[in-house]
């Protein structure tokens, strides 16, 4: 009896309810369609685009890209946008052949075939994946833009797949010293921070230690730099305690022209992340009293001597920043502070904090040998960039000799 009553009630209510529900459904479908229509044309380009940057990190072009499995494909138009606005293309639909004419040369491509032919030289290259058709348009794999095209324009390319970023710069920028053997007089001091049982630096929740990460990177940097013809000395070779004074002695003994102190960062907030560069400046964000005269004579001389190297340190820091920005989503920050590790370094000197051991994402990166290898390559490119910007290389000053 009671259930019958309830059922009747439901039936009585159900008719207007159903109408209301239908109206709601129609409205939401309509709203979602409008939303999809607004978003749809933009989303592929936003999600998948490749940014081409120049040697200074400035954007040349941001081109839409299509992802097919692991591969990224760009349109023929991207060649015009990035390399040559005068490039022309012909696509033969039935034969699936694409010809690009640029710089009095023809590049022959075939959909579904990885071989690229160049006329009139007759040279051929093999792509890791062939050109394909997407939405009836011929699309070119990213490797075509990073491995084949730069050669035509006397450029070198560097590709960061995780950030979908390609850096293009004049050929020889990164291989200059290895070819010319011109850096024999350059000595770079790499200082792996902390060390020994007492000074472990910061530590991750997983037990990863700053002193170990920086030592491993320092050794890798030494190897890669020397392959490029740059002499590198380390302030410690093993897990041993070294005072700041002992570290600087290594720099002086080897007549170092650049001092790079490697560290890992930590913060009280687990959200803080990223690479940071620090320069020694007693008049930085934190500062010593403005009256240098009031400082003891020895201290006063040191402060003045350090100031002489600040500009050169900033130049090197900019080189590092440009190279490391290639690896990071957000630009690398630079801060000037009174730093103890560099307080006695009478040469251009920088502290590089590789990432936060207190942040999960940074910790993951710092635990990844591939990422560390990329960081090392970027640092060596910064060395090369800095050295080539100074011509002839700066000799150690009289003041340094006195120390």
């Amino acid at each position: 009896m009671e259930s019958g009553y309830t059922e009747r009630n439901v039936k009585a209510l159900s008719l207007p309810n159903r109408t209301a529900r239908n109206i709601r459904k129609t409205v939401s479908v309509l709203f979602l369609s409008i939303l999809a229509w607004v978003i749809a044309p933009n989303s592929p380009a936003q999600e998948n685009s490749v940014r081409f940057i120049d040697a200074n990190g400035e954007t040349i072009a941001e081109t839409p890209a299509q992802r097919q499995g692991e591969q990224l494909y760009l349109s023929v138009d991207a060649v015009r946008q990035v390399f040559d606005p005068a490039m022309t293309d012909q696509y033969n639909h039935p034969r699936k052949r694409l010809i690009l004419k640029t710089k009095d040369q023809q590049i022959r491509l075939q959909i579904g075939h990885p071989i690229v032919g160049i006329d009139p030289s007759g040279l051929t290259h093999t792509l890791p994946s062939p050109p394909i058709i997407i939405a009836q348009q011929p699309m070119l794999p990213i490797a075509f833009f990073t491995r084949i095209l730069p050669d035509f324009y006397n450029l070198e390319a560097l590709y960061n797949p995780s950030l979908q970023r390609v850096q293009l710069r004049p050929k020889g920028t990164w291989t200059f010293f290895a070819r010319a053997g011109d850096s024999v007089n350059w000595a770079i001091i790499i200082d792996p921070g902390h060390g020994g049982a007492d000074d472990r630096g910061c530590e991750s929740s997983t037990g990863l230690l700053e002193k170990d990460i920086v030592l491993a990177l320092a050794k890798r940097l030494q190897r890669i730099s020397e392959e490029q013809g740059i002499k590198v000395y380390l302030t410690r070779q093993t897990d041993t305690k070294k005072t700041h004074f002992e570290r600087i002695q290594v720099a002086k003994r080897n007549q170092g022209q650049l001092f790079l102190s490697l560290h890992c960062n930590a913060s009280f907030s687990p959200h803080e992340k990223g690479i940071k560069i620090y320069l020694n400046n007693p008049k930085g964000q934190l500062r010593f009293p403005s009256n240098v005269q009031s400082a003891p004579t020895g201290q006063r001389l040191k402060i003045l001597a350090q100031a002489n190297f600040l500009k050169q340190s900033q130049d090197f820091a900019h080189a590092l920043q440009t190279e490391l920005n290639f690896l990071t989503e957000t630009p690398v920050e630079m801060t000037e502070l009174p730093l103890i590790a560099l307080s006695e370094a009478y040469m251009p000197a920088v502290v590089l904090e590789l990432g936060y051991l207190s942040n999960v994402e940074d910790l993951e990166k710092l635990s990844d040998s591939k990422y560390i290898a990329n960081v090392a390559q970027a640092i060596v490119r910064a060395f090369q960039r800095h050295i080539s910007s100074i011509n002839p290389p700066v000799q150690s000053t009289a003041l340094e000799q006195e120390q």
Partner: protein
Amino acid sequence: MSDNQETVKHNSSAGFSRLIVIWGTTLILIAFGLGVTLYLIERSKQSAVPTAPPPLPIAANPSDIPPPPQEVNLFLLDTTALTLVPVKTERRLHAELTKRLSQIITALIQETPPNFRNTIPRGTVLNEAYIDSQQTAYLDFSNHLTDGHIGGTTAELLTITAILKTVFDAFPEEIKQVQILIDGEEVRTLAGHLNLLQPLHLFQ
């Protein structure tokens, strides 16, 4: 039964008039007592009798009076904005400068409200605070400030900056720079990055 009722009636009317007399007398007595009390209070107010118990704290020893609570800004890390922000707290601050400085730094060490992180390592104690004639504040901390520090340039900078900001906010005129000491000694650094050999101030 009816007799009994009569007696009760009679008895009740006699009791009623007696009750009025008692109540009336009581009220008169209360009114009189109240009048006398009010008169005495008024008299005691007019004649400032020195032997009377001190009605106001002014008459007591100044060092025994708790000062009124004052607002103090303690700089703590906002974990979402990743910056040091002033967090207001109320403290009964001492009138004397160095004691006030000690109180504020101790408050900074102890304060841990939700959504904020204290940048002073746990267990740290302020041994002593001192201000010299050059307006340099010397803050002598226990070794926990260095030994218990998590390391990293950012964390070290946050620790030092939180101390400096808290000091300069509370003493904008009285203190110009701060020298950090550990167990009475000057230190080169807290965690191996910042140079603490000289007194520090902040670039505004």
